[in-house]
């Protein structure tokens, strides 16, 4: 009687514990991955996945050759790079909060900056729309008071990306700092004491002790961020889109929703979605490999 099988039998109850979760992931995550093969078929609901005819890369070719392909790619990438550029903000906020000695002030800052994270994307979009309203919004009121002309932010394509990214930063700069604060708490205080004895200034200590100390966390979060690179929180984009700003706001995911679910072009948009996910995955793998060389990686 091998130890392995007796081990399994002894803990059969633990396997029962695993069952619901495994069933969930297999059904709602892996079966769709299997279903993604309709990207290579001409899917018809009547024939089902198996019966539908194989057409290879036709959908992909259609997508790459479409007149909107470059626009979608451009918007998706631009929004992403814009967001990535603001990645350091949470880090700076964390480093800053960490240096605060007054406990009450620290709690106040944290209480306020964590709050927006819990506001739903619908309410955030609602807030954006009322604040930027050309006639009644507070932003234009201020602009008028300063002698300027009101700007119709929501209908101007040029403003869309800034609105999307900056409002996201407003919402998440506090919450995003929590992980870094946890990492900062783990830095050996003796390092700071030794540096202080050597006469190092605060700035010096932040740059040469704190920052390197949380670098593993930064790298891992950065990679995770890249892993959803092409996804670009499209729930908010979808809410803020309108026919007038479409040329700046239409991204790959919103196109998949619109053409796929609303216009029932299932296998075509499944192909686009698959393209999206594969790019994400490729970016993730690439950067993880790069990070592994520096000793800090996801796996």
């Amino acid at each position, binding site marked *: 009687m091998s130890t392995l099988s007796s081990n399994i039998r002894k803990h059969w109850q633990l396997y029962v514990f695993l069952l619901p979760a495994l069933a969930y992931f297999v*059904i709602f995550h892996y079966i*769709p991955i299997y279903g993604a093969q309709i990207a290579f078929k001409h899917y018809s609901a009547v024939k089902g996945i198996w019966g539908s005819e194989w057409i290879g890369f036709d959908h992909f070719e259609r997508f790459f050759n479409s007149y909107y392909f470059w626009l979608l790619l451009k918007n998706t990438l631009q929004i992403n790079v814009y967001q990535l550029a603001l990645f350091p903000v949470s880090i700076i906020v964390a480093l800053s909060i960490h240096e605060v000695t007054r406990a009450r002030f620290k709690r106040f800052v944290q209480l306020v900056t964590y709050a927006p994270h819990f506001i739903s994307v619908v309410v955030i979009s609602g807030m954006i729309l009322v604040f930027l309203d050309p006639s009644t919004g507070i932003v234009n009121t201020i602009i008028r008071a300063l002698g300027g002309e009101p700007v119709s932010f929501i209908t101007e394509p040029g403003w869309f990306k800034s609105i999307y990214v900056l409002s996201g930063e407003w919402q998440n700069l506090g919450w995003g700092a*929590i992980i870094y604060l946890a990492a900062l708490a783990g830095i050996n205080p003796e390092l700071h004491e030794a540096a202080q004895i050597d006469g190092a200034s605060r700035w010096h200590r932040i740059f040469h002790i704190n920052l390197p100390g949380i670098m593993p966390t930064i790298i891992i979060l950065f990679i995770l961020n890249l892993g959803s690179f092409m996804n670009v929180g499209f729930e908010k984009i979808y809410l803020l889109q309108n026919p007038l700003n479409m040329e700046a706001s239409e991204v790959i995911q919103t196109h998949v929703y619109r053409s796929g679910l609303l216009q029932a072009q299932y296998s075509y948009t499944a192909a686009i979605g698959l393209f999206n996910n594969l790019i994400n995955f490729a970016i993730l793998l690439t950067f993880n490999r790069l990070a592994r060389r520096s000793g800090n990686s996801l796996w």
Partner: protein
Amino acid sequence: MIKQAFEDRMFQTFNHGFLLAITLLVLYPLVYIVSASLSDPTYVNSGQMWLWPKGFTLEGYERVFANRDIWTGYMNSAIYTVAGVLINLAVTLPCAYALSRRGLPGRKAVTLIIVFTMFFSGGLIPTYLLVKSLGLVNTYWALLLPSAATAINIIVSRTFFQSNISREMEEAASMDGCSDFRMFAVIILPLSKALIAVMALFYGVGHWNQYFGALIYLSDRDLYPLQLFLREILVQQEIASQMLMNGGDIELLMSEQTRITELIKYAVMIVAALPLIVVYPFVQKHFVQGVMIGSLKE
């Protein structure tokens, strides 16, 4: 020495100033919304109200609460949140506990299966087609089953169990003939109240705030969660004609309607966020704990 003290004070002043500025920047829109929801729209729209309420009025809230859709949405969202969290805990916690038991054969494989889904998915369309083929579309289950658990929460819970449950106690209990089921229910769970609280909160907020699942799977308005009605009012500018009535069946004048529309929007935002606002200060530290647990996973 003196130089260091001076430099330190300069730094503190600058640091505090920086953080104060950021905090006020975050705080201002929130205060504005609350004030605007309680102010006469004429002052708000002209910009005369910019911080504290002016021309105090509860009319916005009255009209919001008179709207049947809001109540339907509230009730549905409550159902989705409570039922959702119960399902989430039932799926997540046992699985995380099992994965935390070091000797379990196949542990690594199962963990990999779960974690892989964080990085790759079949996409929106295949998932939608699956839910549709399972007959879940336009039922409560469409919002409860496809989100039964998240990989990240399972991992965070597993980390908690690994660092907070002592091996010796487990071994002692099993030597006493305690089954895994009993051990989990009678020993582990009571010790994991903090984790349960954090998971319930994380999952709960997710359920309360979600709109997209409802958007794609539900067509029956009686099943709509609050966020979907909010979307109609705030984003699609479809203020239910109900809310624009003038006590009775006479519709308000057009000019009155435009004036009230914004007021209703501010009020409905507060009403929707109310449960979270009320609960937030008390549970904030639990959330932070949750993130901290997760960050120790490496």
